[in-house]
């Protein structure tokens, strides 16, 4: 168990807790992407480049897009947004 493995394991454990404890969806989406980045580093440490690349791509493109659009749509209704859909 080289020190790098221990450090990244502790960081990922903390990251997972942070994502779950963050109840506001918008902030959670951001923390989730950071957590995905930590996972990418963990997978590189576990000598799994394909999986790291997959997690990197999914964590930076697929999850954020899907989450942010739904959050934006849900928050609009909440605050009686103006007529045009503010970006």
């Amino acid at each position, binding site marked *: 168990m080289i020190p790098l493995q221990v450090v990244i394991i502790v960081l990922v454990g903390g990251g997972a807790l942070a994502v779950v404890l963050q109840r506001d969806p918008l902030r959670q989406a951001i923390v989730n992407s950071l957590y995905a980045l930590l996972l990418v580093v963990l997978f590189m440490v576990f000598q799994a*480049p*394909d999986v790291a690349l*997959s997690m990197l*791509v999914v964590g930076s*493109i*697929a999850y954020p897009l899907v989450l942010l*659009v739904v959050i934006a*749509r849900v928050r609009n209704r909440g605050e009686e947004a103006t*007529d045009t859909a503010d970006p």
Partner: protein
Amino acid sequence: MIGFAIAGAGFAALVFWALVGLPDFGHYHWPYGNALNAIATPERHATNVVGITVFDYRGLDTLGEEFILFASVVGVSLLLRKDPEEHVPADEVRSDPIRALGAVAVVLLFVLGLWVVAFGYVTPGGGFQGGVALAGAFLLVYVVGGYRQYHSLLPHSPLEMAEAFGAGAFAILGFVGIVYAGAYLGNFLGLGNAGSLYSAGSVPLLNWATAIEVCAALVVLFSEFLKIYMLPAASWTPEEGPR
């Protein structure tokens, strides 16, 4: 809540008790993985064993995985079909530097995606990862250009046909495997030489079919969600139908 706390603690205890039974970390000694590592280059002339495992040794898992993505995107279009007319607001990005740099970024990401797909069975990468990167490139068109460009660049039905084509091609290539190699998803082309793009028999075909399907599926998924996002707040209220 107390009930759950006790049960949750019990569940966690069970999980951690099970993990104790695993062999020590870092001492993988099973024949399965070592056998696949050993025969990848001699028998399939491929250097990325994970790519070969995904497309050849355990190709059926990937067929199932492709159709999971295909079915979920079809499901999302089924669930979000209820919305009124398309609303394409004029929200172009007006600052020229962003548009210029954005165009460069789109091309770069597109080429990167193609590269990641192409070398899937040689170096880390593959149909899925490259496909998502390509879908990201299309998404970047919306981010730096505007919804109008994105919408005109990617009409809906050809995308769905591309998605169906990618998934169907994977299944059909399996049938071709029966004809030439005697088993579904059998490898049927010449093996070429390892480390080059022309290697590992029919795996490149499966690789590209996956890339097309994943890219088209994710772009359809993004379009569905963006279409909802673009609706004016007024039209995002439940119809007066039965509650």
